[in-house]
């Protein structure tokens, strides 16, 4: 049982299985049973295989690294040091670099005395090198730690539920479909063949791409699968591509994501240009002389063991940012380059203390975060996500819970060791703005899926904010719990839509009687997302993760009083979340039916759709629990905590001095109690207000909307973000495009047309010359020959005696001629 070799194999297979399914359905999908019915089985079998392999990897991991209670601070440095010891022995380095591992371990032990720095267990390596040239090495590799293993299980599990659910939900696609939302020019509706296999094909590719991001061992590979996720989202959001709204939404999601990815490319270039590597962990590469050398990865460059894993601007960035000075020193020592190198090396620390290179690290961090802003739908790029509701509901569930939007948060979590306090503050502010804006929009939305979409945006804001204020495990813990309850909520909404054939909550109501299972499971989801629980005793999964975020935000606010707004944003967001989630539940399931036509046709969904709901709701309840032995998702995430991030750090140059408090400080009594009570009070207030307005009808929503009409209009227009982007990006782009097309039509086309016209005229002249002069000459020659022939013909009389006379006369004439000529010749 060697996890270093077993985990990459298991997770690698789990990663590739959906690819196999994708390829199989791509080529043989339409032949898989009637209308490709069996494609669902192929895709589901693949994802179940992935799940089983992930669970096996999970088991392997737990066997090798049992989850223990979180190690707080230095008082149990013994235990945490032992953990670090294990990491030095068989983590961080490949198994085949054993002596390097020993060396690293020794060095690590030397520093362990005063820092107790805990190094997480992580396995890394490369399967295949795509390209190697100079410093750049692009490879398909793995970086596996507790977070990777956990996310694999979460993603494959949720994807399995969604596959099962979708095989029921998408049954309309099994026969020819008449799309009532597509109006043809002849006034009819679009009638098209079903696309059942195509859906599962894209779903498989989506899972493959997402798992690729999870397992990726370097940023280049992350970027590859990042883009693959983007294209998959385009396929799936635009599944009903004949609908204008769907194709627009798909394009919007794709284009908005490209904006973020541009920032990510800048970040990648900053990292590669200055550091020459994109690998997360140290990697073993072959030196020119054939020996194996350890090339430090991003994590150990930014947080070297020599500083006790405290963050510092890496040497490469210092020299890169100070290239002029470095070049000058090198030129001075041109005679003996080694002296120059020594001189530069001796001055790096001085330059670093002057702050040279910190901008580069800041840009690298913000750049990578830009990509995450796009994928995880953060302000200002969140506009694509609500529109992505145009895809089939299982896609919304997958995109919103476990895959696409999770990718951004996951990458920030993975990349966390490289982020400076300034970058973290940018992340926290972005998250805070996002969660507030999205929550306010969700208050007034009437489309059930849009409410959930904005709640997703808002919860992603929570996660980003948590990561930004130093709550690394809080943010990722919330990512996992949110994956469970948000996929549950989406599948429930899908069930409701399936029954009611409408998205509009104003036409629903009283559905709890006809759809008890859906109503019950959705209630669980709502309670989980608002973080319901009995304070200090027990709660649903959201209770734990949201409390952790609140506590960390509070801890950050106390350490940086000027940024205490972040805590209020979280607390206010918790209130708003509770309000809009229960507004949704009350409007949909409670009270009496508002539209009897809808209510009469509503029915409970089939078992294949309800079963995933029940499974997910159980997980939405228990996912946050920590078992008495210490086993729990929070502690498992904690196991992967990046080295050096478990202590309070200070820094910051852009926003003044910043303190990022250690996360374990947020578990201290005063902060923890305050945070828990705040969460409980705000959530309870939100639920009560929602109940007062929509259940007991003590306050009329219409009156409230009327009283705050400007605010209501502002919110129901989604803060006019779409209009704003339309005005400042889309319209100028169209203006430029129409200018360009005008130039094209008016100038370039005219020019080309003119050239073509003159060429045609010239050709006409040429043709005239050809027909009249050249052909005339040839024809005249032919005519002359013809006429001469006609004349000569008369000589052939057919009279033999005449011929003989010709011969005789001709011969005599020749003789006479010859004799005369000879006379003349002789005379001369």
């Amino acid at each position, binding site marked *: 049982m060697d996890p270093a070799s077993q985990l990459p194999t298991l997770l690698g297979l789990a990663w590739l299985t959906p690819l196999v399914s994708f390829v199989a359905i791509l080529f043989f999908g339409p032949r898989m049973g009637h209308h490709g019915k069996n494609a669902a089985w192929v895709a589901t079998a693949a994802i179940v295989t992935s799940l089983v392999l992930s669970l096996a990897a999970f088991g392997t991991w737990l066997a090798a690294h049992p989850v223990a209670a979180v190690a707080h601070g230095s008082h149990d440095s013994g235990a945490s040091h032992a953990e670090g010891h294990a990491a030095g022995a068989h983590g961080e380095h490949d198994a085949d670099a054993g002596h390097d591992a020993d060396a690293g371990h020794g060095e690590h032990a030397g520093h362990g005395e005063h820092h107790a720095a805990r190094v997480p267990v992580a396995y890394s390596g490369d399967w295949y090198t795509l390209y190697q040239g100079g410093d750049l090495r692009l490879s398909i590799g793995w970086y596996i730690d507790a977070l990777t293993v956990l996310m694999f299980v979460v993603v494959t599990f949720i994807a399995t539920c969604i596959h099962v659910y979708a095989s029921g939900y998408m049954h309309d696609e099994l026969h020819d479909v008449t799309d009532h939302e597509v109006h043809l020019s002849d006034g009819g509706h679009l009638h098209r063949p079903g696309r059942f296999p195509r859906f599962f094909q894209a779903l498989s590719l989506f899972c493959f791409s997402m798992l690729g991001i999870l397992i990726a061992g370097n940023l280049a590979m992350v970027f590859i699968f990042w883009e693959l996720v983007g294209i998959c989202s385009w396929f799936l959001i635009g599944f009903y591509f004949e609908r204008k709204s769907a194709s627009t939404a798909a394009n919007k999601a794709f284009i908005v994501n490209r904006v973020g990815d541009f920032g990510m490319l800048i970040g990648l270039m900053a990292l590669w240009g200055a550091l020459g590597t994109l690998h997360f962990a140290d990697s073993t590469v072959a030196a020119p002389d054939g020996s194996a050398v350890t090339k430090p990865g991003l994590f150990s460059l930014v947080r070297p063991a020599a500083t006790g894993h405290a963050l510092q601007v890496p040497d490469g960035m210092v020299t890169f940012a100070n290239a002029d000075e470095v070049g000058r020193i090198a030129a001075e020592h041109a005679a003996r380059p080694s002296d120059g190198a020594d001189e530069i090396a001796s001055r790096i620390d001085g330059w670093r203390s002057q702050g040279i290179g910190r901008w580069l690290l800041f840009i690298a961090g913000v750049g990578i975060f830009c990509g995450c802003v796009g994928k995880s739908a953060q302000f200002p790029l969140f506009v694509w996500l609500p529109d992505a509701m145009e895809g089939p509901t299982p896609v919304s569930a997958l995109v919103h819970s476990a895959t696409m939007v999770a990718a951004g948060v996951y990458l920030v979590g993975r990349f966390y060791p490289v982020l400076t306090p300034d970058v973290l503050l940018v992340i926290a502010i972005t998250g805070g703005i996002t969660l507030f804006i999205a929550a306010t929009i969700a208050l007034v939305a009437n489309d059930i899926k849009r409410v959930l979409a904005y709640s997703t945006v808002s919860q992603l804001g929570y996660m980003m904010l948590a990561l930004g204020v130093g709550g690394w495990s809080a943010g990722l813990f919330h990512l996992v719990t949110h994956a469970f309850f948000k996929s549950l909520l989406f599948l429930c909404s899908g069930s409701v839509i399936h029954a009611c054939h409408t998205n509009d909550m104003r036409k629903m109501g009283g559905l709890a009687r006809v759809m008890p299972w859906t109503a019950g499971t959705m209630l669980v989801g709502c309670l989980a997302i608002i973080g319901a629980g009995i304070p200090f005793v027990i709660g649903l999964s959201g209770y734990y993760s949201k409390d952790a975020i609140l506590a960390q935000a509070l801890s950050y606010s106390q350490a940086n009083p000027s940024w205490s707004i972040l805590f209020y944003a979280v607390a206010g967001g918790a209130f708003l979340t509770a309000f809009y989630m229960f507004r949704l539940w009350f409007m949909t399931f409670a009270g009496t039916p508002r539209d009897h036509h809808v209510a009469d046709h509503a029915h409970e969904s089939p078992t294949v759709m309800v079963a995933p709901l029940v499974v997910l709701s159980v997980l939405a309840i228990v996912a946050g629990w920590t078992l008495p032995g210490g086993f729990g998702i929070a502690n498992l995430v904690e196991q992967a905590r990046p080295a050096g991030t478990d202590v309070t750090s200070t820094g910051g140059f852009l926003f003044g001095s910043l303190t990022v408090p250690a996360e374990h400080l947020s578990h201290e009594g005063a902060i923890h109690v305050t945070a828990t009570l705040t969460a409980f009070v705000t959530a309870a207030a939100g639920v009560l207000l929602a109940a007062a307005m929509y259940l007991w009808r003590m306050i009329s929503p219409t009156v409230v909307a009327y009283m705050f009409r400007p605010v209501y209009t502002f919110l129901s227009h989604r803060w006019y973000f779409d209009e704003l982007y339309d005005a400042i990006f889309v319209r100028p782009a169209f203006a430029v495009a129409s200018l360009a097309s005008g130039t094209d039509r008016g100038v370039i086309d005219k020019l080309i047309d003119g050239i073509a016209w003159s060429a045609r005229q010239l050709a006409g002249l040429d043709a005239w010359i050809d027909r009249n002069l050249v052909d005339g000459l040839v024809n005249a020659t032919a005519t002359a020959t013809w006429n001469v022939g006609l004349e000569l013909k008369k000589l*052939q*009389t*057919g*009279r033999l005696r005449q011929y*003989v006379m010709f011969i*005789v006369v001709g011969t005599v004439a020749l003789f006479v001629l010859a004799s005369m000529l000879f006379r003349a010749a002789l005379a001369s």
Partner: protein
Amino acid sequence: MSHLAAGLPFASVPLFAGLLSAPVGVAHYLVVGAILFTAGVVCMALKRNALGVLMGIELVLNGANVNFVAFSSPYLRGEGAASLGLDGQIIALFVILLAAAEAAVALAITLNFYNNHATVDIDRAEDLKG
């Protein structure tokens, strides 16, 4: 002898002057050959009967044969019996041979012509005129 020759009108033509008085040599044969040739050509030109034309052809060919033989004979050239010099005789034999073959072909054509037109009048053979 020379006087006699000079009295004939033939001898008044400058080209033939001295022929009758000179010993028999190549020139005399050439004259005979020319007469034969001319008689053959005239025969070809004047006869309407195809057989007559064929006969004229034979005369033309044999006129040429006389020339060959005459040029070939060393006695006639006045060079004594120095060599056997049979070239002309052999060419004459070839000509005779060819004349026989030609006559066979020509007679066959004539026969066929007769079969088709019931005549051997070559003035009637103008089917191929232009």
